[in-house]
């Protein structure tokens, strides 16, 4: 449990006790660069997406911490799951997450990702994000203000710098577990069909 953050930031997941003694000085340096340069995927789900623009623009200026937006998942390091995930969104999030290149990190915003939040009895939203994909850092609140998001980012940077943010490894190692949970809510087709049908189909959208 980490303490001392203003917004009562709490690490719900992530191996805080993972072994980092094997790191040599080169790893240390690389982790420092990773920490200083974080590309965040410009992707928003749910209501939390509205807090991200002020975080990244002039008012709160996340770029002074080395945090900036990336347009495509190939270039991104961090995906922010910003709010409730319906099944349909979860499918896209997983797809996007799997397109990102390692090492990648997940930042989950809002109480919806922690335990369902105000959608706790909804048939169409998931309750615990970490069942379906690994999460490095939760930022609680409904919604978290940009200050809290920045705090979450700083906590994430600390984890990255210490070499403890290894959720991507966890996803690789426990892929069967995550896949099983994903199939439980999404059915057999976890990945959405990506073709032009929805666009060309008469009345498709």
């Amino acid at each position, binding site marked *: 449990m980490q303490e001392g953050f203003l917004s009562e930031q709490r690490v719900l997941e992530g191996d805080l006790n993972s072994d980092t003694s094997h790191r040599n000085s080169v790893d240390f340096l690389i982790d420092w660069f990773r920490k200083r340069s974080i590309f965040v995927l410009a992707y928003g789900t749910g209501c939390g997406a509205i807090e991200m623009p002020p975080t990244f623009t002039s008012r709160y200026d996340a770029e002074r911490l080395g945090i900036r937006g990336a347009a495509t998942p190939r270039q991104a390091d961090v995906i922010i799951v910003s709010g409730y995930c*319906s*099944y349909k969104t979860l499918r896209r999030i997983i797809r996007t997450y799997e397109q990102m290149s390692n090492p990648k990190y997940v930042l989950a915003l809002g109480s919806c990702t922690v335990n369902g939040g105000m959608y706790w009895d909804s*048939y*169409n939203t998931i309750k615990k994000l970490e069942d379906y994909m690994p999460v490095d850092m939760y930022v609680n609140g409904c919604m978290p203000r940009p200050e809290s998001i920045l705090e979450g980012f700083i906590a994430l940077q600390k984890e990255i710098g210490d070499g403890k943010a290894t959720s991507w490894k966890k996803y690789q190692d426990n892929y069967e577990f995550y896949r099983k949970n994903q199939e439980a809510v999404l059915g057999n087709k976890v990945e959405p069909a990506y073709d032009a049908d929805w666009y060309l189909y008469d009345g498709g959208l």
Partner: protein
Amino acid sequence: MYSEIKNRFATSDIEEKRDSLAKVVVERHRLFDLIAMLGREYDYVTLSAITCADWIEDGHLALSYMLTRADRKHVMMVQCMIARDEPHIESLSASFKQAQIMERELHEMYGIDFVGNDNLVELSLENWIHTPPLRREFDTLEFVENHLTFREGRDDNMDVKKEMKRLRALKKAQKEAAKKAKELKEAESKEVKSQLKEESTDVK
């Protein structure tokens, strides 16, 4: 207008809800005639929504077609009942193109089959194999408990502020206890040291 509808469509169930909204209930085989008539003779040219209510006690679904007049001042709500057991009705998508996606949603949420609408594929629920979720026999809470897992501690329903206060007090008490223990230890070690000193001076 109301008297004409009463005469021509053999319905007495006309209710003026407010200045801008009136409700008409008709038999389902006269429904499309009424909608066509309203559009043709009274300028109700826009279909703004199709809604549905599930009357599980009476055993039917109430389908309401909201028709807006061309001057946007008045809305006519044309309602008809269809049986819950075999929910199907003719599609309106031939005369109103926007009915296509509204019917698609109703098909998804209530399982109503719109005959003549050829694109009743899934809209926002993907791979949904259970009961259509807005039917009243679908128990949301039961579904959530059966299919999804909650994080532990969700249901204890504690007051967050009180809990934080309690935790802080606990922490403070622990700190003070640790401080006291430390002081005690230091005092003991001092005593031991002084004793040792005394002993050493004795030896000298």
